[in-house]
């Protein structure tokens, strides 16, 4: 308990910066951390004891926590004790000497029915208090997911925010020359493990997006004969299209309840936003002005939609009711604003911004206030929210190069290549798995 306020304060700093307090208030709070830099929390995660995968599970947890930027896992070479018994209190005096503030220990047991049981405890080293004691049981091949669930539990207990590690990412793997890129839909765990292809690359795929409450995605396919929007269930491999349309269809995104898909339909060169009810297949037109209207994204309560329109002369962000009424521009900074995505928490809208020859990923409040630019490069595009609404994944392209996946937290301080070595674009982060 003793260190939780420290970390909570760090996260509060991040939030405060976005709320836009007066300058002196910011400086005051900022003084509690060194030069406005988040100090990652030192944490020790020794190899779990017991059968098999103990070191592997610890490695997965360490990598998750370290990648979040909020934790500094301590090198195992420094550990004062090894082969910790989950049933015995750790020797806290020893862990204090290496400055560990938190300690995770765990044990793996193979049950009579072949199932894997993992017990773990999270300790506050300075008070000696047990902060968590949890037990997971699953099939042995699920060991990585158990490690992700433990990571989520530790992250949530120590930061006060929901975790995001037991989740997956669908993205577009790119290969071949620029003029004729082969684009395959792929899925991987959020830490880059278990990548596998969902489409064969025989047609161009773009912009996959997850349903907020299921393992279903929607994406766009583009062939010389035209475009189509697919629904694809990752667990059942069931695939279907939204149907045939006279013009281009693109930019699909689920409503928060998963029952509808909003997307753009182009007719005679003009793109407008429509919504299809997936049960009845009825379509409703939401916009009808002569500008480009695209990239719709629902608020998590389903009541509003943020979208991209150039009706005012350049691409900007607008918010309208989910029935298409009351459209109001929210982006007023200089530059072009595109690909808005509403946070699953509802508190921010992430976007791609193009200004002065550079591209940026940024966030703003749903009313357009408190804009914050998080990244800058030759081409940064297409943010997607981690399920906890604190981290974004996007893709970055260098001049003439192939795109790569990156992550950034909503303070902009923790910017890292995503843990996938290949070329990828258009990431879509899943909700937490069950």
């Amino acid at each position, binding site marked *: 308990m003793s260190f939780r306020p420290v970390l909570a304060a760090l996260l509060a700093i991040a939030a405060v910066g976005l709320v836009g307090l007066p300058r002196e208030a910011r400086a005051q709070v900022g003084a509690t951390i060194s030069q406005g830099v988040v100090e990652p929390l030192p944490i020790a995660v020794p190899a779990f004891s017991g059968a098999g995968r103990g070191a592997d599970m610890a490695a997965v947890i360490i990598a998750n926590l370290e990648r979040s930027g909020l934790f500094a896992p301590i090198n195992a070479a420094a550990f004062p004790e090894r082969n910790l018994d989950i049933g015995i209190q750790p020797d806290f005096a020893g862990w204090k000497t290496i400055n560990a503030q938190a300690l995770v220990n765990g044990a793996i047991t193979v049950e009579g029915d072949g199932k894997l049981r993992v017990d773990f405890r999270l300790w506050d080293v300075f008070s000696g208090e047990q902060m968590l004691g949890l037990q997971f049981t699953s099939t042995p091949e699920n060991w990585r997911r158990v490690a992700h669930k433990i990571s989520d539990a530790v992250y949530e207990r120590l930061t006060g925010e929901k975790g995001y590690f037991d989740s997956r990412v669908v993205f577009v793997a790119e290969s071949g*020359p*620029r*003029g*004729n*890129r082969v684009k395959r839909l792929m899925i991987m765990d959020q830490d880059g493990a278990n990548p596998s292809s969902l489409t064969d690359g025989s047609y*161009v795929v*773009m*912009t996959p997006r997850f349903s907020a409450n299921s393992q279903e995605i929607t994406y766009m396919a*583009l062939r*010389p004969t*035209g*475009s189509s929007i697919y629904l694809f269930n990752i667990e059942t491999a069931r695939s279907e299209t939204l149907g045939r349309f006279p*013009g*281009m269809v*693109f*930019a699909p995104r689920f409503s928060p309840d998963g029952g509808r898909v909003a997307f*753009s339909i*182009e007719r*005679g*060169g*003009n*793109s407008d936003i429509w919504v299809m009810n997936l049960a009845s297949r009825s379509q409703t037109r939401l916009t009808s002005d002569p500008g*480009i209207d*695209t*990239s719709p994204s629902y608020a998590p309560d389903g009541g509003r939609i943020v979208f*991209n329109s*150039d009706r005012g002369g*350049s*691409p900007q962000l607008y918010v309208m009711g989910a029935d298409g009424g009351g459209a109001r521009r929210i982006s007023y900074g200089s530059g072009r604003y*595109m*690909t808005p995505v509403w946070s699953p928490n509802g508190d921010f809208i992430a976007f*791609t911004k*193009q200004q002065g020859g550079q591209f940026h990923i940024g966030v703003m409040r749903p009313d357009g206030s408190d804009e914050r630019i998080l990244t800058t490069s*030759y*081409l940064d*595009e*297409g943010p997607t929210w981690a399920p906890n609404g604190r981290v974004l994944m996007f893709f970055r*392209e260098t*001049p*003439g190069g192939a795109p790569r996946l990156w992550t950034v937290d909503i303070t902009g301080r923790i910017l890292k290549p995503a843990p996938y070595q290949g070329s990828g674009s*258009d990431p879509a982060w899943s909700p937490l798995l069950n």
Partner: protein
Amino acid sequence: MSFDAKRAIRLALIVAATASMAACATKPKPQPGPGPSAGPGPAGPRGPGPAAPIDTRPIPGSVQDFVINIGDFVYFDLDRYDVRSDAAPVLDAQAAWLRQYPSVKIRIEGNCDERGTREYNLALGARRANAVRDYLVSRGVPASRITTLSWGKERPVDPGSNEDAWSRNRNGHTVIVEGAR
């Protein structure tokens, strides 16, 4: 399915062939330089004499004819989709050719440079494709012979990342899909 696949492969081959021809066509023609000097040469046996030139040109009404003699690309300004003044003569010639060969059907593909987002560029490419379509229709090409498609920024003709490449990648590409000789 296999028919479609075969057809797609054939189309791809034609597109590749015409694209490479187009690339050749845009290269500057070699200028005559100092060759072997004429004049009295060493005496010897008489050869068959200079070979008569053979004129090579695309079959009228073929895809190659359209690509080389008419031009299958027109270009657009940054963020614009109105037909440029230098594009109008090309599209006039396309329309005349298409009127001359009424069985030809075309697909107009709109393309964008990489300096925009995928989704916005899909919409912008559709505007460009439709601007070309509307122009051809206004010059007497029946709309029933034309389909449009936007590739957005997915199919740059120039892989570079500079102004020159971007200006070439902002285009409307008239692709013959059937009916050529």
